[in-house]
């Protein structure tokens, strides 16, 4: 558990990685904006699972803006290209809201 002081700004995302039943699950926590989106992309690249199903567990994402959304899109495209798939699971409120506002719920596979 990370205790956050009120004035402390999350500059990092935290990742938890797990393999289960032929899928790779990556849990992301933190705030995804233009300054942290690259970190997300980079971590996914390192996993190198574009050929498999990547499940992004987003319950820890406390904030996500259009840049974050764009990053998710980018990952999806990459998975599609690689022959795998992207699934989003356990959407936090912030993630759900932005997807709702931008009407992107039909674009992502949400499980």
């Amino acid at each position, binding site marked *: 558990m990370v205790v956050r002081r*009120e*004035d402390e*700004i*999350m*500059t990092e995302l935290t990742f938890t990685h797990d393999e289960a039943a032929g899928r790779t699950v990556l849990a992301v926590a933190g*705030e995804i*904006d*233009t*300054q*942290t989106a690259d970190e997300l992309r980079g971590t996914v690249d390192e996993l190198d699972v574009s050929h498999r199903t990547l499940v992004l567990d987003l319950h820890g994402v406390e*904030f996500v*803006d*259009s*840049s974050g*959304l*764009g*990053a998710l*899109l*980018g990952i999806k*495209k990459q998975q599609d290209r690689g022959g795998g798939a992207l699934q989003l699971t356990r959407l936090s409120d*912030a993630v759900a*809201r*932005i997807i709702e*506002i*931008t009407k*992107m719920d039909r*674009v992502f596979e949400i499980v």
Partner: protein
Amino acid sequence: MRSTWTSSEVGRDLEAVDWASTPLGDPDGWPVSLKAAVRILLTSKFAMWMAWGPELTFFCNDAYRRDTLGDKYPWALGQPASDVWSEIWDDVEPRVRTVIETGEATWDESLMLFLERRGFLEESYHTFSYSPLADDEGRVEGMLCVVSEVTEQTVSTRRMTTLRDLGARTTGRHTEDESIAAACEQIEADPLSLPFGIVYLVDRAQRRVVRACGAGVDDDHPFAPASIDLDEASPVWPVAEPLAGRQVLVDLSTVPHEPPVGPWGQRPVHALLVPFVDPATTEPYGFLVAGLSPFRPVDEAYTGFVDLFAGQLSAAINAARTFDGEKRRAETLARLDQAKTDFFTNVSHEFRTPLTLLLGPTSDALNDPSLAADDVQRRRFDVVHRNGQRLLELVNSLLDFSRLEAGGITSQFEVVDLARVTEPLVMMFESAAEQAGLSLEFEAEPLSGVCYIDVEHWAKIVLNLMSNAFKFTFVGGIAVTLRDEDGQAVLTVRDTGSGIAADDLPHLFERFHRGRNQASRTHEGSGIGLALVAELSRLHGGEASATSTEGIGTEMTVRIPFGRAHLPSAEVTDSAQPRTAGATAPTALVSEARRWLAPETDTAADQAGRPPGDVARVLVVDDNLDMRTYVADLLRDRYEVATASDGIDALEQMHQGQVPDLVVTDVMMPRLDGFGLLERMQADPRTTSVPVVMVSARAGEEGTVEGLEAGAADYLVKPFAARELLARVAVNLELDRVRRIRATLERSEALLDQAQRLAKVGSWEVDLERQTVTGSDEMLRLMGLSRTEFEAMGYPDVIDSVVHPDDADRVGHALASLRVGGLASFDQRIVRPDGTEKLVTVRAALLGDDSGAPRTLQGSMQDITEQRAAEQALAEVRARDEAAQREHSIAEALQRSLLPAETFEIDHLDVATYYRAGVEGTYVGGDWYDIIDLGGHRTALVMGDVMGRGVRAASVMGQLRSAVRAFATLDLPPHEVMQHLDELVQDLAGDQIVTCVYAVHDPIAETVRYANAGHLPPLVAARDGQVRRLTAGGPPLGAGYGDVPTEEVSLPAGATIVFYTDGLVEHRGRDIDEGILALERHIDWRGTSSLVGVPESVVDALLPLGPDDDVAILIARAVVDDDEVSMSMHRDTGRATVAEARHFVQASLKRWDVPDTVTRDLALVTSELVTNAMVHGGAPVDLRLQRSGTRVLLEVRDDAASSLPRPQDPDDDDEHGRGLRIVETLSDEWGMHETDRGKCVWSARTWSSAERTRS
């Protein structure tokens, strides 16, 4: 010529002589030589006399007259010399003749002459010379005598000599008689100094003095009786004086007998009695009767001499007596010594027979197979046998020793291999040493010489030394060595024991000597052992010696010279082979040693068969194991017995465990003896009262008395009968118990009395059968009666005598109605003999006897007079207090009900109030204020002042306040409210003056509409600080308000309005305007912070001495409901700038109480706008956030002067371009515009109260 005579005294007297009647004729006619001779005579300072002429006419000079002539002067002048010295003329005449006839001078030295010049014939000595005197023709006509008297010297010398000789004679005389005889010899040797001397010595037993010797007087001479009774009425000599220590000079003419004839046939005239004094006791024990020479004057010199003589004799006698005494003592000691040995010898012989009869049969019994091993008799026989053997040893040692002394020992010296003979002896102690935890070593080096040893003696020597070492050694060990040294065999026994004190060492080998207080295993021992060793060593021609250091150890050494030269040949047998086997040594010493080691857990500790119940505990203390066991066994049947081996052990046990009820202790024990134990026990409060029974072998009254005086409860002498011991123990325990009970009882009684005294409670008791009463000391004190007075009253008369007459019936009734076992308790008064009354609480219980019939009344009585009075006083005070309190609370409650509320919660207005009644002790006065919520965001503010003070004004005020509230609910315009109030005041109190202002605040219109009836003008100012006094208004209420209209003033956000009463601004001697001005100045119109505390501070400032009239203040401020924050960002700060902006916005909105949904959306908006600005725009990027009411405005400014962005429509695939769309969706309004720097994109959002609750 005569003129020369007159120069001397004699000369003058010579002149007076009738010369004509002398053959010499007139001096003028004298021959020249005569004249010359006379002149020489007269002028010389030397004593001279001369004679001239046929008659030998006498002349002398001053000196001669003075020294020699004495009484015969001046008669002698001019007389014939033969007349002048008639008494010595026989001596003188031949000399004179010689001179005159032969012309030769004579010389005589120290010639003794008896001169009569002082009235008696005086022994004198002169040295003189007669020389011829020739006349003018040369014929010897006369003689000149030059004389020097040497009497003093001669006599002194003689006396000194006598004294010296006396000293010489008496020195070395060891007996009194010899000394006295010597003294008498000396007296007889110098009769001139002491014609006679008689020595008398006191015989106190017979109350007389006895003549010890007489010198110069015959034994049968009555002058010197053989004895004189002290009581004799008129003794020959005044014995009383010298026996009282005083010298006395006796005139012998008073003595009934004639003194013996002394030298020169004269009898002495005086005798001096000088006492002999014993310097130790200063009591005269005799005296010397010293006859004094009649020929010497009895002057100080003479008496002094006699004194010295007597003194010397006395000293000699004293010395002789002392010597005698010493000699006698030494003889006595020697005799004692001998007596001891004899005694022991004789008695020892006597001992042996019964001992044999003891040991024999007991030994038989022990060897009898029919005596079972566990038979209790066996144990008894064992004890008897053991102790019998011990006795036997002791007796044997003594016998040995005394035989040695008497020379009765025969020795047999043989050639012996000393090492081989010694080792087994030493090793006999091996097992005992092991048991004691001591080391035992034996080391022998080869000897260069031949030892001739009597093996029996040697065994005794070695075993005694070993036994001794063992006895005193507790830790460490014993080392025995046999060495060759200086032609001697040296046996050394070294131990690490308690050592011997330095002053004991020299006496170590003496008979009967025992070391003082050494720590040893046992106190037993006769002291013979080492003496025996010494003697036996001496028989061998050797010697025994010892060195020791206390606390470290001891080394005993026996040296035996080699060879046989020093031994009596009769006792020596030579053999070719040295003997290697020692004598069959007595094992007694070894067994004794082993016994000292008996384990601490002796059978006495076995507590089986202890009697049950509460038994007394007895501690038995004795260093002898057998004794301990015996006594413990005796006592075990009746008591719980513990044992200790000496005083220290006993104290430890008492300290660690329980204190016994009685202690039975031996007296002689090592470390701490019986007396020591007793002393220590007495000093410790825990054990001081434990009775101690001492058991001692020391018989005789003294021992018993000593023991009892030291504090022992009882003293038993060994041997004692078992019955006696048991009896004594029982008696002492019982005595002790009784004593303890008594002590406890006394203590309890004392405590009870004390308690009663403290509580002022007395106790009493009535014997109903005998009709007697009795009470405790405190009871008597309470009643003021003596014990006899009280008890004389009896029961039931005591009630009438003591109880107050008015209470007597009640009391009597209460007591009479008691049942057996019942308790009554009541208050009553008693009357004391002096008439004073006391109030008491009585408790009474009726007790019955065995059959249940009433027997005794018992109870207590406690003095409660003062207590009751105090209680009453207290109750009265309390009642008064309560009444006052009640009145006060009523007044207070009433007042509080009239007070205005203290806090108000109004939207749109920040309000603070202050109220204080002017009259001290009251809470309300005529001033009041009120704040009424009119609904629809509007608020009525009221302030009023009823002239007058105190509760009366307050009650009018109360009514008015209620009326205003009532009117307010009708929502009437202010001036109408005022009209109604006016009517009311007229009705209520026609003469009352009431001022009032009624104002209504509308936050939407941002106005205050008001009506003022004669009240001080409220103050209004906006944030700019420009103050207005709202002076418009009408007359006070009750005078007819009329048509004064409602006024209006604006009250924008942040503006303040202040209402107050005259108590705040009106001061005696000061213009009211000044007060108002002060108030204006004191309010912080521009301030934005809360108004809390402001009214109080205003009052403090304006009324530093406190208000003396009613004061009311009401301050209201229109709430500003605006907030604004901003922040600035730079692009490349390396920090998460966008996140920062987001969090900033979130925090601010949260602080402003903005709903969470709005905050969440605005955070997203912020993120988009700032991202855009940073990505497309330029740094720095400024963010401003404003809130006004329920609307929030967000502005993001950048430096990029590019074209204004437009929202886009990205495809699903596009990762970018959605930002502004999101902003558009989430904002109520949004837009952008150019700024001088770059551009500004803004988003606004409003929310309703419904949104608030949803979050």
